[in-house]
Structures are given as C-alpha cells and as structure tokens.
C-alpha cells in the first residue's frame, strides 16, 4: 500500500462523508459533480479490494522481537 493512499477504512469514511455532503441540495454544482466522481471511484476501489483481497497469515516467532517487528511494520 502506498503511503499517501487512504486505507480501506478511511476510504469508507470518506464515502460516508460524501454521501452526507451530497444530501445537501444547496451544494455548489461543480463541487457536487466532483464529489460524485470521487465517490464512485472510491466505491469502485473498495469493491475491487474486497473482491480480490487474500487473507495474509504470519506466524510470530517468540523471543525474536526484532524479526517480528520487521514483519509487522509497514
């Protein structure tokens, strides 16, 4: 995952935010279209991620904190 890319949860939160913003009919039209497009793109990314994700399982070795830390830091 790229560093500046939103994680899955943040994408979902952003989508919720966009839904709320789009409920306001007084919103600027250009802004609304921009949000709509952003929302559709995010929704597509999230769906793709859910469909294609594969479970990752790591076995931690006891008493080797350094090795495991390397495993976990992203």
């Amino acid at each position, binding site marked *: 995952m790229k560093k500046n890319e939103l994680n899955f949860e943040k994408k979902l939160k952003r989508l919720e935010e966009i839904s709320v913003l*789009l409920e306001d009919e007084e919103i600027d039209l250009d802004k609304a279209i921009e949000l709509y497009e952003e*929302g*559709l793109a995010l929704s597509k990314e999230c*769906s793709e991620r859910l469909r294609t*994700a594969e*479970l990752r399982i*790591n076995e*931690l070795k006891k008493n080797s*904190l350094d090795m495991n830390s390397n495993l*976990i830091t992203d």
Partner: protein
Amino acid sequence: MLSKATSDKTILSVSQITGLIKRNLEDEYSNITVMGELSGFKPHNTGHWYFNLKDSDAIISCCMWRSLNSQVFFKPQDGMKVIVTGRITVYPPRGNYQIDIRTIKPAGSGELQAAFEELKSKLFQEGLFDDINKKKIPEFPEKIALITAIDGAALKDMLSIAERRYPLVELFTISTKVQGAGAANEIAANINYINKLKNIDLIIVGRGGGSIEDLWAFNEEIVARAIFNSVIPVISAVGHEIDFTIADFVADLRAPTPSAAMELATPDRNDLLSSLGSFNQEATQSIKSIVAAKRNRLKNCVVSYGFRRPEDIVKRRYQDIDNIVFRIDNGIKFRVSSTKNRLAVLIETLKMHDIQKILDKGFVLIKQNSKFIRRFTAFNKMSPFIIKFADNEIEINKNSFKQDE
C-alpha cells in the same frame, strides 16, 4: 540400672535409626492418597513446590517436583482443600518426613469455584471489570493477533471466518499453550509480547471448549492482569462450556467461541459490498436531485421580481415619458382653448359696445333663440322673442298680450 538396660540392646547410630525409619515408612506408605487443606504454599525458584497439608489436629510437609507440578492446571492457593497422591519420604539430614506428591487436584469442584469467586471479587473491587476501562474494538481492523494453540481447531475456525468475512485483514498467530501447567504464564507473556509490536489493532485470546480444568488458565490472575494492562483491545474467546472465565470479565469484549470472536472482530465483506452498491445508487439519486434543484432555482430566478426589475424600469420610464407628453399636450390644449375663450369674450364685449351705442340712440334689437335677428327672413313669428332696449329687455310671447287684457 539404666546402663544395664541399654547394654542389653544394640546401640544404633542416628543414621542407623533414621535409615530404619526411612525404610519402614517408605515401604509402608509408598502409594497413598491424602486429603487436606493447603497452607504455606511457596514455589521455589528452582520450580519445585513446598507446602503443608493440614487438618484441625495435624500437619504434614509436602513437596512436588517441577517435572510433576508443571502438569498441574491450577495454581494452588492456601486454604484450598486438595487431594494428593504420592508417597512418604524421609529426609535424613533434617530428620523429617514428607509427602512426595505425584498428583494434586482440588478436593471438589467447589474448591475451584471458591478460588474463581475469590479472584473475581478481588479483581472486581480493583475495577478490572469496569466498563470505563473497556477499549473500543476497531471497526475495520488491519492486523489482528491470535493468541491460541497453533494446532487447535480454534485457530482453524478463526482463519476460515476471517477468510470468508474480511480477507483484507492480516493475521498474526503466536503459538501458545492454552491448557495445563504454565498455560496461564504463557498466555500472559504472549499478550505482553504482542503489546510490544507495532500496528497490531486487536488481540483475540482463547481456545475451544473444554472442562473447567482445561479452561482454568483463563481464570488465573496473571492472565486477567495481562489482558487488563494490554494497550491493544482484547477479545476473549474461550469455548462456551462454562458461563464465564475471569478473562471474559476483564476483556474489552467477550465472545462465546473463537469463531464468534472473529465474527465480532471483522466486518462482513458481503454487507460492505452491498452498502457500496447502495452508495452508488444513492449518490446517483443525490446528484440528480441536486441538478433538478439547480434547474428549479434557475427557473425561479428568471421569473423572480428581481430578475424582472430591469424590464419594469424600462416600462416605467416609458410611462413617465407618456405622462410628460400627456401633460405637455394638455397644457398646450388648455392654453389654446383659454386663449380662444378670452378672445371670444373680448370679441363679445367689443360687439356689445357697438350694440349699446345703437340702443342708446333709441333703437331696439330683437333676439330670438339667443340670437339677434338681423333680417325679416330670420324671424319666426310663431316663437317668443326678446326686445332689447338700452336699459332693459322684455320677453314677448303669446301670454304677454293676454295678461294686458
């Protein structure tokens, strides 16, 4: 006498008599089962256990070697009634005897229950179960650590549920002994250990169902404290054959089974996909409403008072001009007509002056229908008429003569 009596018997050394006692006792009591109350329990740092068993009238020393006590599922506590098996041994250097214990177990389930209740009440008093200390379980965990037996059914269940519900999650397993002696220490150590790693969002600690003895590690104080001290939220996931373990009370969330724990820990992929689908629908609906609303506003603007103002202003200016023209027009007309009137009056006055001169000389004028009659042909002898003298006038009609008669 005394010396004579003793001289009859063989004189034994301390070692000899102790050796005899040892042989007798150890032969006689090589396989015994004893029930008593635990007291003075202390684990030695070599791993061996030393304590006493007592009842109201007697006390006996006990020891249990590390290799054997590592199989004991519970931590002995003073006051606990236990049943031990073993043999009597004599320790010549101290001249004492003890039970060399092979197995130890609580005298009844009531004993474990009592230990459970005691610990529960102690931890409750300390606030370890308070809701205020419960951490929030993350809604979308990215990394979950699983503390359970690496070869257990519990782990397999959790992996398959994670796979089905939320494969976005990354799982970290750590092989952990979850039953028997030392299980509690290992569970606690692994909870502490996971807390030293970065970025773990959630810990699930548990095992499948079992007897109260099998699950006992989750009733130990050391596990309770490790869960309480964990900075990372903890879900307890101990098989449901008994109602609750101490771990369940301390955990941030309690699940009745490992499978249930994973279900609680992860959002469901299908729910997410369907809510993403409904986002698309709703957003499309919203954008349509927004466009419709804008169109409506535009329409309202065109017919609005403000928007019509410029047109009104032009119209009003036209009206102003019309008014002015009208007024000018009227003014001119009035002036013309009043001039005309004045002229007529003057003319009339002039005329009257001429007529008066004639009348003064004694002539009269005849007026019929408000006109002076100048010629015989203009006179109508059937109509009344007026004779105008210089000083007055008189109307002559049919009745004029009748009255005189």
